[in-house]
């Protein structure tokens, strides 16, 4: 299994490749800040990811009540990180499901 530093290195390379244009226009210090933030927002929820993967592999391990509590924490924690990472790498990512969710509930 790759170490955290390996993953961080890989994520940094991904950011560099996707943001070549930004690198040329931004102050190096600001670019580095965004690059580091992107890596942070992709890494900080790794524990949640592992727990989710475990649960999906062994769904019988969690009862519905515990799974609910875990998912509430997961969504509150992970979604803002992914939103932030998405903004840093791809600028704005639209939410195609907002309207659908409303229609589904009506």
């Amino acid at each position: 299994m790759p170490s955290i530093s390996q993953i961080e290195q890989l994520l940094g390379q991904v950011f560099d490749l996707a943001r070549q244009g930004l690198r040329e226009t931004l102050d190096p210090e600001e670019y580095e800040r965004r690059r580091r933030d992107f890596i942070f927002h992709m890494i900080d929820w790794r524990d949640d990811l592992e727990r989710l993967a475990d649960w999906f592999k062994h769904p019988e391990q969690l009862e519905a009540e515990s799974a609910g509590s875990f998912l509430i924490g997961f969504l509150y924690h992970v979604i803002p990180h992914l939103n932030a990472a998405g903004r840093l790498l791809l600028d704005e990512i639209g939410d195609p499901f907002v309207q659908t969710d409303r229609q589904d509930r009506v």
Partner: protein
Amino acid sequence: MAQPDRDTDGDGTLDERLWVVQDANYNVTVLFDNSGNVVERYIYDPFGQVTVLDTDWTERSGSAFAWVYLHQGGRFDATSGLYHFRFRDYSPTLGRWTSLDPLRYDAGDVNLYRVVFNAPTVYVDPFGLDNDIPDAVAVPLPGPLLPVQNNLLPHISRQWQRLVQECDLIFDGESWQAVGGRGLLLGVKANVNAIATTARSLVTLGIWAEPWEVWAVDDADRPFYEGGFLAARFGWELLPTAGIGKLTQAPGQMGRWGRYALPWDAVQNTVQVGRGSWDIHQNGLSWTNGLPVGGLLGLRGNYATWRRLPAGGAAPRTWQDFLPEAQMRLQATKAKYGNVEAQMMAMSRKDALKRLNGLTPKIEEHLQKIANDPMSRDLPHWTREVENWIRQMEKVLPYIGDKTAAEWAARIAEWKARLGG
């Protein structure tokens, strides 16, 4: 009225919800469990001394459910033996308040310790300020207008009362106030009162214009009024009142007409024998006259009415006629506001607790991260995350009941302190 769920055995599970029945004076008389079984009863002397009974009417030394809301809904403190009523504490053993009336003489009683004119079976005083009649529909004003409500309007009402006492035929005024969706609404009603003082009765024949009736109609509802837009409403009412002597002996009672939006017939000894109105509509004039069938029996709001339909003689519309309009309005509301049902759905206590419990591990984890690595570059991110989750928690606190909310608020305060440190 229900007691929020409570943890009876301290095992962390909220396992009991109780329901109460109150009599006309808001005295709690019976506790029910969730299945509708009586679990405890209460009887009172006129001044609020309570006796707790079990389901078989056998006396108990105290409540088996730690129930504290008793006489007129006041909160009973067993240690002091006093009821708490917001502005003052009341002693059921002395049958009087333990401090002066904060309204002083504006409450209408020269004895500032006396409770509701010594007639607690007739009046209630939920604020510890002034006497009220329990079946009245009271609409308190918002905070900044309380001085007007508590001082100016009672003063005006007392001046009218003085006129009522001194004259045989007067014009009487009635101020209306209500807090509606579009702010404070005010109206004026002018009545002609014929008072036969010798008969100790009051007959009121009122002719009135009532802006409130018009303003209270929401714009969205106007198309549903027969005849279209309601532009104005004028009305009449006939109100004989028996026992004016009783009214004049209780000066505070008339003061309350100015303090709250109350119809005349909210006064217990007044019977409304007729009421009608002329409505000026977009499409013409219509009128309605009514006799309160149930009024003499004490069942207010049951009218036999006869009506003149709006111009054109259209037949009264049924619910089927309204259906297409209702469907259109529903669609328009959905288009404007999104999912109406979701917006109207209040968060349940259980859902709120789930959110709190789901967020707690995240907060603890991140506070631990901050404590372990206080010089981390990621510290600002973690701090902002915890602050955001705390804000989310504070939003759901109102849904979990006062006691539980206080416990969570203490926990949140501790987290904030750790974050600040």
